[in-house]
């Protein structure tokens, strides 16, 4: 017996108790509910093969494509099914995708071909993205920080940045340096992507390109601070990094906030150096 709690409009949940084979796909079940139980039940679907990306929903908080997910793949016998964008659901399992589609406009979302005639674009994994919105609506930074462009938009930006024929690199990077550093590296996007893409790797790649910009942003300074700290000490030294980012005076509040930890005998004041630091410095130098 599987118990389904399916979100309907206005925070109401329909409860269905059904005997279903564990290998039944979630989407098949939705269709059965609509034909046999409630013809007003709204959800979206198209290809049924995990290609179109239109049937994404959240099951017990985990975003999945309904057409690819079997009922038996969840440990719990109670499935709470909600629309992907649970913050502002539209009707039943239909989500408001507007913020997601808007996120792509943070960067020029096309390539402007230009460099040389013999250069070919490098094939990129990013073209496999189906824009299902799963990464976007499972991202905590999207929920709390307006500054973040979102994993899918960054994957697309990286695809164009790695394209030698594109001429918009500079403006893409200028947009990126303000829009990619809000990622908290929770790896949810990578975990849940139904196409097996690696948005975290794309975010890293775009951040690496941002370091080539002449102007610094908070994000690039943060990366440089940690890099320099490892170069000097072999370890991350919090005081060194704070001073690097905020300057001597600016870092004082941050450093003073560590005082309670000092009183709890948790802080080593003398900096720690790795043994054989020369090896580390040599490894971190450019080849």
């Amino acid at each position, binding site marked *: 017996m599987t118990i389904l709690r399916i979100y309907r409009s206005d925070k109401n949940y329909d409860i269905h108790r059904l005997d279903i084979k564990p290998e039944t796909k979630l989407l098949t079940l939705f269709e059965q509910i609509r034909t046999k139980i409630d013809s007003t039940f709204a959800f979206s679907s198209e290809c049924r093969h995990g290609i179109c990306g239109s049937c994404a929903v959240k099951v017990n908080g985990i975003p999945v494509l309904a057409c690819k997910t079997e009922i038996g793949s969840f440990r719990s016998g109670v499935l709470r099914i909600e629309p992907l964008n649970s913050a502002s659901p539209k009707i039943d399992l239909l989500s408001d995708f507007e913020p997601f589609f808007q996120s792509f406009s943070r960067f020029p979302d096309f390539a402007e071909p230009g460099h040389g005639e013999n250069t070919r674009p490098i094939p990129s994994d990013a073209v496999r993205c189906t824009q299902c919105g799963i990464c976007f609506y499972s991202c905590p*930074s999207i929920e709390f920080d307006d500054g*973040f462009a979102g994993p899918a938009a960054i994957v697309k930006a990286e695809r164009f940045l790695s394209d030698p024929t594109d001429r918009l690199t500079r403006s893409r990077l200028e947009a990126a340096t303000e829009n990619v550093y809000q990622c908290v590296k929770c790896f949810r996007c990578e975990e849940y992507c139904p196409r097996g893409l*690696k948005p975290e790797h794309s975010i890293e790649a775009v951040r690496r390109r941002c370091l080539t910009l002449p102007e610094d942003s908070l994000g690039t300074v943060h990366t440089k601070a*940690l890099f320099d*700290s490892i170069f000097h000490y072999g370890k*991350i030294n919090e005081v060194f990094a704070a001073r690097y980012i905020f300057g001597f005076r600016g870092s004082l509040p941050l450093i003073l906030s560590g005082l309670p930890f000092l009183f709890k005998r948790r802080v080593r004041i003398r900096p720690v150096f790795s043994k054989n630091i020369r090896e580390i410095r040599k*490894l971190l130098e450019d080849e």
Partner: protein
Amino acid sequence: METIVFFPGCMPISIARHQYRAERKLLKKLDIPFIECPEFSCCGGGHLQDADEVKFLALNARNLVYAERHGRLLVTGCSTCYQNLVRTAEALKDETLRSRINRRLNAAGVDDYRGIVEIRHMLNFLASPEIFSLLENLVIHRKEQNIMPFYGCHIKRPSTLLPENPDGNLEKLLTLCGAFIRPMRDPYVCCGFHGQITSPKTSNALTDAILNEAAEQQCETIVTVCPLCAFNIESRSMQNDRPRPKIVPVEEMLLKSMRR
């Protein structure tokens, strides 16, 4: 028992020394021979790959080379170190990349990376049947209190990369200590540590959500498995007036429930 290589990570050495002390003491109590190399460097803290991926791989390969000198099993108490070391080991299974990194290592005077060391997280190591049976003999039920187990993200995600599934391990250890477990809705939620500087809004919101859940569940203690989570949650809890739960690393929790 085979000697293990203990990789503490930067934070337990610099600003979370209570965890460092607890980890070493626990391993001694369990009579597990361990070696900690003074040569170990930072794993990159999740941010070195934002600067240069090859340097990130080379730095971690160096850590693994030093680990290979002393044993076949590396255990770390930090989830971010665990994730980065595993990522390096997986990436260097590629022959071309490995020879490229090895050339770099040789140029810096470090031996070749061979890829023979297994990487495990301290939590999974402690909860493995062999060690757990040792713990069962040592732990005496002492503290009966409401405890919220918190895993954090880098111990499980990305699950396609990380070899071990930590599900239930923390609960298993805490039950041994006699705790009343108050489960979180999502114990693998991110604490926001890596966004502390670059996205304070997200970081604070995530940490507040954890603290609020602990308050709702009337937990006196949150037990963590990563020094970064512990530091982040604790420093946030000091910033406002809500009830402050104790943030205790799992190793310290186990030690507290043992005979002195």
